[in-house]
């Protein structure tokens, strides 16, 4: 079954049930139940996928939801994105609200307003958002810049730079989640080169440098150097090689 969009004209719907393909184009609604490959750039108001979808090209979706696995081989832009399962975007990912339970992989830069992840987030370049909430693991090959960052660690996380307003990193408690490569007994950890924010609260974090106005270094941390302006608290279960107060 092949469905093609009518670019420039009135927008129809694309509906693929079972197994099918399309050449992309402009649609009102795209609905995939089963397995579909879209060969070409696609622009739609809503994108729904139950099963497996691959867009060979770029995707713009006013809102996108996926239960299953979804892959975009170029950039993806749009409004809200909701994923249960797996989502991969090969280059830039620029959207509004993101909600993922499962796995999110971005090959390029990522920018969003509000992001909530249960599971795994991997971004291969810089990443920015107003609000980030993660329960699981984060891997960013660049700078993660967000106004509010809230990470609950389940498994190993890695970042180059973590910066923003309020940064909270906590170890997990209780039962391990079902997702991710989980090692029993591990509480999760974060490794970063530098962390900078106004209010920084860390647990189980390994970082060379932490800078902030109020810095709290909790249990399980190994920090090379802490620079703070107003307040610095260190848990007895943390190691900080050096700390300095700056300013008046």
């Amino acid at each position, binding site marked *: 079954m092949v469905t093609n969009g009518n670019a420039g004209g009135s927008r129809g719907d694309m509906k693929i049930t079972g197994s099918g393909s399309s050449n992309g184009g402009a649609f009102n609604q795209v609905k995939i139940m089963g397995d579909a490959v879209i060969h070409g750039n696609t622009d739609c108001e809503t994108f729904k996928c139950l099963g497996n979808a691959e867009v060979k090209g770029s995707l713009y979706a006013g809102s996108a939801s996926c239960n299953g696995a979804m892959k975009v081989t170029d950039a993806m832009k749009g409004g809200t994105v909701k994923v249960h399962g797996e989502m991969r975007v090969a280059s830039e990912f620029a959207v509004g609200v993101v909600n993922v339970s499962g796995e999110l992989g971005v090959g390029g830069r990522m920018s969003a307003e509000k992001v909530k992840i249960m599971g795994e987030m991997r971004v291969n370049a810089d990443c*920015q958002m*107003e609000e980030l909430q993660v329960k699981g693991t984060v891997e960013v090959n660049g700078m993660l*810049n967000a*106004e509010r960052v809230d990470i609950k660690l389940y498994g190993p996380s890695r970042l180059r730079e973590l*910066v*923003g*307003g*309020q940064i909270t990193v906590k170890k997990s408690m209780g039962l391990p989640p079902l997702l991710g490569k989980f090692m029993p007994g591990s509480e999760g950890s974060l490794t970063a*080169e*530098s962390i*900078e*924010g*106004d209010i920084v609260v860390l647990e189980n974090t390994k970082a*060379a*440098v932490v*800078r*902030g*106005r109020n810095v709290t270094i909790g249990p399980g941390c190994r920090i*090379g*150097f802490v*620079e703070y302006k107003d307040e610095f608290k260190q848990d007895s279960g943390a190691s900080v090689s050096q700390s300095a107060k*700056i*300013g008046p």
Partner: protein
Amino acid sequence: MNEDDLISKKELLELTGISYGQLYRWKRKNLIPEEWFVRKSSFTGQETFFPKHKILQRIERIKNMKDGLSLDELADVFSPSSPIESLSAKHLIERNIVTKFAVELYEEECGSREALSFNDMLTVYVLQKLLQSGEMTREEGKMLIAVMRDHYGALENKAGELVLIRKLGVPLLFLAESAERIYFDKDVKRVFRMPLAASIEELKLKLNETEA
């Protein structure tokens, strides 16, 4: 002014009194361009530095304007690309953005036009500024118009810089996309170096003001 001067992030925050949160918020909103974050290695690992003159000026401007404008509006002001549509020359004069004199000189060179694009407006605006300050003669103004018309488009929304030199009374005007420092022989008199970014900001503010 040494344009190579860099300032470390720590010094910058101390000097301006802004916080990490603010700095990174402004970066997210593109008020501070990514290129200004210069990474260099130091004894603590990587450190970030900024071009001192540019960043201090920019932060001052953001601090002054942020009460009146939203961060997104501010981002438009600082962006070298322009969302502003074209305007007629008559309109620009009525709104006191440019003088009739500058427009006339421009039209003498380019012919009279219905509407001026943002780049044309910028040319007229810069022309007027330089003529008024007395740094440039009418003849040099014509050179400016030609340079901007022929080459500014190629900069593709990068700001660039205008430079005027005179040697033995012969003026030479050029548009530089990027030049940290330029050295001339001793007979050359450097009349001005004008970064276009500041004029772009001013012009956008004026266009916004009179619209509101």
